[in-house]
């Protein structure tokens, strides 16, 4: 099993979610995140004092998938999240040792 983590622009969340649902992904965890990459942040001015805001709002999306689905799910996210402008985000995939469904205690792929 794999954990796919995608950092995307908040505005792309709905588009990505719909694309994943159409593909057949049944669940995901989404959290609000802040960060920067090459995009860096922006500046704000309060009473003439300029502040550099490095951490900009992002959405972190986490999906558990079977090994053979991970690549195609990544392609779906890639297609839906890309705007072509700087700050579109990143996706990474890591192996997962175990998954347990809390309600039933099911383990492994059956818990996905």
């Amino acid at each position, binding site marked *: 099993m794999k954990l796919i983590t995608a950092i995307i622009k908040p505005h792309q969340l709905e588009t990505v979610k719909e694309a994943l649902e159409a593909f057949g992904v049944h669940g995901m965890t989404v959290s609000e995140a802040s960060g920067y990459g090459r995009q860096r942040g922006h500046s704000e*001015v*309060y009473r*003439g*004092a300029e502040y*550099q*805001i490095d951490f900009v709002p992002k959405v972190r999306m986490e999906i558990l998938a079977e090994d053979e689905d991970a690549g195609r799910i990544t392609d779906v996210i890639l297609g839906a999240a890309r705007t072509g402008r700087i700050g579109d985000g990143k996706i990474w995939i890591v192996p997962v040792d175990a998954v347990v469904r*809390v309600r039933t205690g099911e383990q492994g792929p059956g818990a996905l």
Partner: protein
Amino acid sequence: MDKINTGDTAWVLASAALVLLMTPGLALFYGGMVRVKSVLNMMMMSFAALGTVGLAWVLWGYGLAFGPSLGGLVGDPRGLLGLSALMSPDAVVGTLPAMAFVAFQAVFAIIAVALISGAIADRARFSTWVVFTVVWATLVYFPVAHWVFAFDGATAEHGGWIANSLKAIDFAGGTAVHINAGAAGLALALVLGPRLGFRKEPMRPHNLPLVMLGAGLLWFGWFGFNAGSALTAGSTAAIAWVNTLAATCSAMAGWLVVEKLRDGHATSLGAASGVVAGLVAITPACSALDPVGSVMLGMVAGIACAYAVGLKFRLGIDDSLDVVGVHLVGGLVGTIGVGFLATSAAPAKVDGLLHGGGLAPVWAQIIGAVTVLAYSFVMTCAIGWVLHKTLGFRVDPDTEARGVDLGQHAETAYELTMTRAGRMASYLAAAAVTQPLPAPTPRNTAVTEGAAPGNETTPQ
């Protein structure tokens, strides 16, 4: 003494209520400007002033400000302690029941003290602030209010020196309230020192809509402050009202133009700040100018204050919410501006330098302004220093880093995530009595039989 006029009485009582609302408005204005961890403390400093200065005013403050003058410097409070001497229907001030005048002046004292708190945001010990409000009101505000607001023959045969000897014009408190509070703010900012991380960490306003709401309430209440200071419901009040509008609109425009040209954007904080700068500047001047003069005064105040607020970063003085940049500078612009822009067509009937009145009115205004500035600054340094050395005026660095809301009030302003909901301490205490302490276990251990069904972290 004249007979009581019901129209005047109604207007002044309504104005007093308008001015009272300015202090909760100030709490919102200041509260929105601080970081999320100190908004409650910021608002509580204003509310504390409502409580303490209101009490002090009733018990001894009115007497110090408006009792029979002791050499023009302070009123003799004996005979006015507790105000019971003013209960008689014969107790009048001008065309008002004396109590209406007491009420109107009370809310001035409160907001003057509350204004100072903006200079020491995020780092003051609340209990010391409470003591400071009483001491400062008694030793600084009440005497200065006597100098400026106690006219001969109004509440006593002889009043204060600025009003009667110097004859400087301060209609609604440019010196007594704004220069006074601004100089005191500067003094306290120096006594307490800058916040941890000042000039390094971002200290952005956490809620600008609160700031805008507060500025709106201040503007609304300020019509009572200025037009109510006529103490009559007539043409003087109406002229003061229109001048207050004119200067404030102009100051907001001035501030925003500076921002647009200098920083590239007109900001909401700039609009709110420009409004307050204009209101401050027109406060001493609203009976002495015509509306066009008010527009000019407001424009100068908006531009001057927009530049003045940046000085603290260069000087390294952490006047956190710009009490100096807005109230002291705006107060000086307004008070000294009267000397230039006053016209004898206005109710104060004085011509300033630009209307052929010569330099005399300018000097009178400068002497009044500088004296109040110096007295307030020196006295506040002394009061603040003594309180700092005895009670301690600043929280410890750990508390400051965690936030004064938690450290001083055991509260946090916003409940935005369920993981911070917590649980009742009384419930925990009861559980501890009936059950032996379990061995330390990780927080995520399953709930065992007999243990409490608490609010575990909500599942995702």
